């Protein structure tokens, strides 16, 4: 199958997974799933499954990476070998390195780093099962894990990717739409203010299409944020 052969929607405007253009995949979140971590979260987003663990704050070693005035986030995003149809060989991976960096930049924008000078906070993101939008799942799970660990933040980052396939702007791309589509726009949004801490884009979008993608992402972020808050409240609000 090549580009242009994939039909993302049928005649009634229904996508392959039964959604309309402006609907999100199903999202479930649980916190405290890694008992030995200071904070952790599991997210199931469509067929994606990701876990995030937070350790720290702790002394930053080696000394040369320490910052006198604030903490640093030490973020690792990784895909497990069995997470994709074709096995991923463990080891250095440029894509994972890049995603680790942009995730760190996103999260450092909201964490109150000045509270813990000279220390580091480890954020470990592992993709257990991949569909599409794994970097978004990772950032979102990491936000919940940081909250679960009691790390102070001015807001929780919610990340989601809209895009375009067969000329139709779509909310929350799934795998074939991501593979065969014409554009994708992942964003990291602060739901309290609709400000951004993460932004990437690949493909071809007119200004109108771009704005619609943006709006879709903001709307989806609010929906996911409610699920994040619910997961945290269930953990701390009285469920034994």
């Amino acid at each position, binding site marked *: 199958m090549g580009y242009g052969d994939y039909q993302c929607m049928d005649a009634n405007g229904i996508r392959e997974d039964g959604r309309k253009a402006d609907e999100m995949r199903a999202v479930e979140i649980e916190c405290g799933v890694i008992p*030995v971590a200071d904070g952790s979260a599991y997210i199931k987003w469509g067929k994606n499954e990701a876990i995030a*663990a937070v350790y720290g704050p702790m002394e930053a070693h080696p000394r040369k990476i320490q910052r006198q005035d604030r903490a640093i986030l030490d973020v690792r995003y990784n895909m*497990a070998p*069995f997470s994709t149809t074709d*096995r991923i060989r463990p080891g250095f991976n440029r894509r994972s390195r890049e995603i680790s960096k942009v995730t760190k930049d996103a999260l450092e924008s909201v964490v109150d780093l000045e509270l813990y000078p000279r220390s580091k906070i480890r954020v470990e993101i592992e993709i257990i*099962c991949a569909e599409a939008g794994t970097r978004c799942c990772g950032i979102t799970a990491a936000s919940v894990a940081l909250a679960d660990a009691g790390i102070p933040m001015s807001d929780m980052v919610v990340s989601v990717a809209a895009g375009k396939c067969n000329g139709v702007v779509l909310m929350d791309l799934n795998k074939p739409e991501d593979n065969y589509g014409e554009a994708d726009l992942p964003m990291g949004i602060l739901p309290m203010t609709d400000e951004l801490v993460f932004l990437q884009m690949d493909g071809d979008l007119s200004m109108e299409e771009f704005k619609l993608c943006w709006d879709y992402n903001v709307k989806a972020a609010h929906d996911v944020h409610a699920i994040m808050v619910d997961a945290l409240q269930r953990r701390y609000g009285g469920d034994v």
Partner: protein
Amino acid sequence: MATPIIPSLLRENLAALAADDARLDGRSQFDGRDLEIEVDCLANAEGSCRVRMGDTIVLAGVKFQIMTPYPDRPTQGGLMTSAEVRPVCGPNWEPGPPSPESIELGRVVDRGIRESGCINTEELCILPGEKAWQVILDLFAISDDGNLFDAFALAAIAALRTATVPAERFDVGEDYKLEVKGAPIMCSYHKVGGRFVYDATHREELGGDERIHITLGNEGHVHSLQKGLRGIFTAAEFDEIMDAAQSRCAELRAIVAEQEASL
């Protein structure tokens, strides 16, 4: 792996507890922790299993690739085991190249499976001299509260026994169940406070000494052994844990069979 500080009070307490035939969490010497096991839990793997022992949680994934057989073994496929203990699973696991600890983990689990002969790589042939299946077992630690060895080994065999060869995806025939003869099971014993105990927690490992891993097959045959870390043990101590392993391995084997039957 960062070497954690071993609290001296911990070692003293473990010795006092052992003298009293007790353990930190109230278990008896050869009791295992609460066990949860679930197969077929990873959508993109051809075989999978999640195991939880106490607060230790691991995943095993089985994936298949097509390989070219070696010229001197034209009908033989392959089995490869890779264990990843990434920083996600504990405060002391550091990023970087695989540590000696995680390499040992992978190799010990691999030997237990390989030496049992439960997978006959000659049966993985697709086209002699040209194509054969390579079975790749990926072990992945999610939470390390001790005894990753047994958790990995159990998840591994359960994943293998419930794996499907994806012939259709590779256009070489119809999917079929991977043939696995028997179920080798590993039991690990850690010397804590001067005596061997089963299914040690992270804290017991921290304050403990040497460990012994025993893999037994269906008839109670011994398929692999490994002694790790510093320490000295006697033949009598070994006999005692081999006894314990015989019954525990049989119990775990039955649990794996239940999981298979549930699919």
